[in-house]
């Protein structure tokens, strides 16, 4: 018996193969197979012919498993060890990794995954699993349709949410498109008795990896970047980095560049298009007795005054040209006197915003005149705090919220408080990469000394991520400072990890308010003068990021002194030496 008259449905070669396959089958077997195949077709499933043909050799051999372990008491590790030993005995491979060290973005590249995770307390994940447990439920995990998995969940059945963390992993992986090869396996405190069975059954679930299957999910690149380079980036995460009791307010912000194709280098900055605070806009409009809904001409469009001010006009800073333009609408002579005296004007304008100005002087102008007088709201640039080799299509920022009291009113930096207060995760904001060729890592084997107090730390997180990922042999030394060790040590846990891994060779810190006398990074540089000098002699590149007016100047002085004392130079020679360093890019600054 053979299949005939079907070449219009099935190409002749395939038909031949089908005939080959079924020629030895009995009548009963054929009838059964017919039903099986039509059942598959009706259910709309793809017929995995590989599965049918190769069933016999699909034992555990050649399987490559990734085993992710989230352990509290070590029991999950015991199971993982057992599984990996059994896999080895069966000529398969189980790569056991701790969840604590695993990056969620790697999940989409996995084929076969076993999750072994315990649950503690009332259904909470163990510390090692916390991050992955959370992130796997976010877009970060990506599309996991290529992933087969099985979960072994440990727990204590005397607790209410027995094995909850394992169940969460199961559900969340499924939600991301991964294929569950079994229901989650729940193990109680007496799991040791089932150890053999559990590992054996788990291993059986997985099929060998087809090594030559091409990645058919071609990346659909939708070009969402506008012609001026602006991209609407989604906020993935926002965290206040300063611990309880801190006087500082520094945010770590993670943005998605997904599908933008945007690329950046360590040292680059990100321009962020902020939006003004609505209440400030309202105050300005009402003080000037204007109408918020009134339409004004802006870039050959008609838009409401309120929108124009909030999105397109700078309000938190007043510049000299703006001041001059606005002076046309003021009758008081005082303003004109002020305009004639530059020094006094600068002093007056420092820290004042538009609302201060219209509180101080009586203006009489129309909505259109106001909009025409003000300058466009420019984006603010922030040094990028991530490296793409580590974070892929994400970009991270370290942003200090600017807030200060003046004229009995809190003034806020437009963009930093936009990021801090007015945009939430999953919302989008306009960003653009701003290259900074003047702040670049040297060749990978060169030592670097990084000085970045406060938010000046940002590019160095990028540098270190880059050097860690690229396997750079160059030595790395970081100087960081802020107010308090306990609350203001930005990215502390990451630095500790990099130090432990041998990436960060030296780290020195200066917390100004933890002791009677204030200590800053430049003091630490001076204390370590001879070691700093020997790094320089070994070809170290020096990078300084952060406050321009005070810190950067003090750090330059500290280096001049190091050149003087350690190198035996005169002050002039030392200053020339520093200048030479700057010219040859061995001393680079990103200061603001």
């Amino acid at each position, binding site marked *: 018996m053979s299949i005939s008259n079907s070449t219009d449905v099935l190409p002749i070669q395939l038909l031949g193969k089908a005939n080959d396959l079924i020629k030895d089958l009995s009548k009963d077997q054929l009838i059964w197979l017919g039903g099986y195949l039509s059942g598959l077709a009706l259910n709309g499933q793809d017929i995995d012919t590989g599965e049918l043909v190769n069933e016999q050799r699909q034992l555990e051999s050649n399987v490559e498993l990734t085993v992710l372990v989230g352990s509290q008491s070590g029991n999950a590790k015991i199971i993982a060890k057992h599984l990996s030993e059994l896999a080895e005995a069966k000529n398969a491979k189980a790569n056991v990794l701790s969840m604590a060290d695993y990056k969620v973005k790697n999940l989409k590249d996995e084929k076969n995954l076993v999750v072994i995770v315990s649950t503690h*307390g*009332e259904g909470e994940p163990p*510390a090692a699993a*916390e991050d992955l447990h959370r992130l796997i439920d976010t877009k970060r995990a990506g599309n996991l349709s290529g992933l087969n998995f099985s979960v072994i969940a440990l727990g*204590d059945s*005397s*607790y209410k949410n027995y094995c909850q963390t394992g169940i969460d992993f199961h559900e969340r992986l499924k939600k991301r498109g991964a294929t569950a090869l079994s229901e989650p396996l729940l193990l109680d*405190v007496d799991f040791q008795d089932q150890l053999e069975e559990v590992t054996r059954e788990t291993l059986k679930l997985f099929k060998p990896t087809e090594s030559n299957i091409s990645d058919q999910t071609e990346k659909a690149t939708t070009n969402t970047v506008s012609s001026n380079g602006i991209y609407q980036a989604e906020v993935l995460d926002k*965290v*206040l*980095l*300063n*611990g*309880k009791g801190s006087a500082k307010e520094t945010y*770590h912000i993670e943005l998605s560049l997904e599908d933008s194709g945007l690329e950046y280098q360590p040292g680059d900055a990100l321009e962020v298009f902020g939006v003004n605070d609505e209440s400030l806009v309202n105050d300005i409009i009402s003080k000037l007795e204007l109408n918020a809904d009134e339409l004004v001409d802006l870039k050959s469009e008609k838009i409401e005054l309120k929108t124009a001010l909030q999105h397109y006009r700078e309000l938190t800073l007043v510049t000299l040209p703006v001041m001059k333009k606005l002076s046309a609408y003021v009758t008081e002579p005082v303003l004109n006197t002020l305009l004639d005296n530059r020094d006094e004007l600068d002093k007056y304008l420092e820290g004042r915003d538009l609302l201060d100005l219209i509180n101080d002087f009586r203006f009489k102008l129309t909505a259109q005149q106001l909009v025409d007088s003000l300058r466009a709201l420019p984006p603010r640039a922030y040094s990028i705090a991530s490296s793409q080799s580590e974070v892929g299509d994400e970009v991270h920022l370290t942003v200090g919220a600017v807030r200060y009291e003046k004229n009995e009113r809190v003034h806020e930096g437009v963009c930093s408080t936009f990021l801090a207060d007015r945009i939430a995760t999953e919302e989008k904001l306009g960003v653009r990469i701003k290259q900074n060729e003047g702040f670049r890592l040297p060749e990978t084997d060169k030592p670097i000394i990084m000085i970045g107090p406060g938010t000046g730390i940002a590019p160095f997180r990028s540098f270190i991520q880059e050097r860690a990922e690229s396997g750079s042999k160059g030595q790395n030394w970081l100087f960081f400072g802020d107010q308090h*060790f*306990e*609350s203001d*040590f*930005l*990215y*502390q*846990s*990451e*630095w*500790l990890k990099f*130090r432990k891994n041998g990436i960060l060779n030296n*780290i020195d*810190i200066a917390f100004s308010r*933890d002791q009677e006398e204030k200590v800053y990074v430049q003091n630490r540089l001076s204390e370590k003068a001879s070691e700093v000098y020997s790094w320089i002699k070994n070809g170290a590149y020096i990078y300084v990021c952060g406050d321009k007016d005070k810190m950067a100047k003090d750090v330059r002085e500290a280096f001049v002194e190091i050149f003087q004392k350690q190198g035996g130079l005169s002050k002039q020679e030392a200053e020339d030496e520093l200048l030479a360093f700057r010219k040859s890019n061995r001393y680079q600054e990103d200061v603001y």
Partner: protein
Amino acid sequence: MTQIKNNIPQVIEWPPSEVEGIKTKSNFLRGSLIESLEDEITGAIAPDDTQLIKFHGSYQQTDRDLDDERKRQKLEPLYSFMIRARVPAGVATANQWVAFDELSDKYGNSTLKLTTRQAFQLHGIVKRNLRQAMQGINDSLLDSIAACGDVNRNVMSTSNEGLSPVVGEIAEFAQSISDHLLPKTTAYHEIWLNKKLLTEGKIDEEPIYGKTYLPRKFKIAIAVPPYNDTDVFANDIGLIAIVEKGKLLGYNVAVGGGMGKTYGVAETYPRLADVIGFVAKEKALQVLEEIVRIQRDYGNRENRKLARLKYTIDRIGVDAFVELLQQRLGFELEASKSYQFDSNGDVFGWKKASSGKWFVGLFIEHGRIVDSPSLSLKKGLREIADLNACDFRLTGNQGLVLGNITTKDKKTIQTLLDKYGIGTAQKMSGLRKHAIACVALNTCTMAFAEAERYLPKLIEKLDVLLEKHSLTNDDILIRMTGCPNGCGRPFLGEIGLVGRALGKYNLYLGAGFSGNRLNSIFKEMVSEEEILALLDPLFEQYAQSRLENERFGDFIVRQGIVDAPKVVKVIR
């Protein structure tokens, strides 16, 4: 099982646990503590050093309220250190009180904790201040050596001299036990006091402990009947003072007590000490040392959960243990003498000692010395300490006795106590007076649930039930701990609440009122609502059907409400 040869149990060669390894290579408790202290980048010390620092009287802790938040903030946990100062028999001077009061403000969290074992605890000291805090304690002539760790801990003793004429003598004995069993290593002086005591080429010696010290912590307490305020049966060694006509003869020796157990490990359990005989006071120190040495040689060094003396004794058998002890001593213990304990609580109020001096017992809620909006306890006690007219005696119930007060000063002190409203337990329910809670959250790394921060609120709700059943003035022992390790001796509470998870406790009932009987499990994993619902009918039954003078725990046992709990055994 331990083999017995020629009537003597054989010493087992244990495959050493991880901590044993750390001790062995620590060079008499030094480890890398100095390097750890000098590492400015982290507020923590190296993992191995966290084991060793215990022997120096300190624990590394984190503010657990902030652990999750700080992890998100990419900050390490907020590490700080607890320092426990050893105060034998709990007797401290007024100057020492002042010193701790100041240290708590300067380096700690501005509170002091009086522990259930008569020690001072300072909390919240960050690493960079740890040395200065240790030096401050040392300057006050106290120290924290062996306040924690696998050694003999603070020696407890009844400290209120108004209760018995022998208390003073016994407190002195507690001091000499403490001195005798103190580790001899000079590591403490090197690390904390910057003093190099060893001359070049010489190494430390530990004649009693050896270089791996004991397998586990070791606790000794003395009580003077009828007061068992040190809960002697909860200790590795309990000494019961035998007094005749106002003279101390010696002690009944009880061995193998201990509270701790581990959930899910059936081989662990709380155990009361067995009374194994009487020893005259002149020979008591020798007996103690020999018991310590036996535990050093026989204790389990493979599994720390099974390493306390109580497990050693149960493994080799109490008779074999006594036999071994007597062989090593070269003499036999006498038969134990009769004694009677009435209570394990504190006695509040003024008592006059035979010396003519006055002692006043004060109620301190859970031993926490802190100024709150409603009570300026810390300020008031500081003002009293500044008079330098009394000493400060910590009790085994987290309480305080002001002692050695002349009749002239008595009035001044009472005036200050009145001014600040300190120590008056009169208006409290009998339940609150007897409540003990350990520190637990937010600093203890072991706690599963709240204790000290929560028990006062729970008692408020229980007081309503007690009032309903007219039991407000009945003395009832309630004890709460955040974990089953037993710092608050929860298994000796007539009502014992032991933390399982946040908001969930195991409820134990039926302990004796004088520390003579353990409680038994009544219900696992109960919430506050369930605790109240379970206790309400039991209070009602107790109010209606108790015998004359019958204690709540005794009633629970007589009614068969819990399985018959373990009582103190007298072996001989």
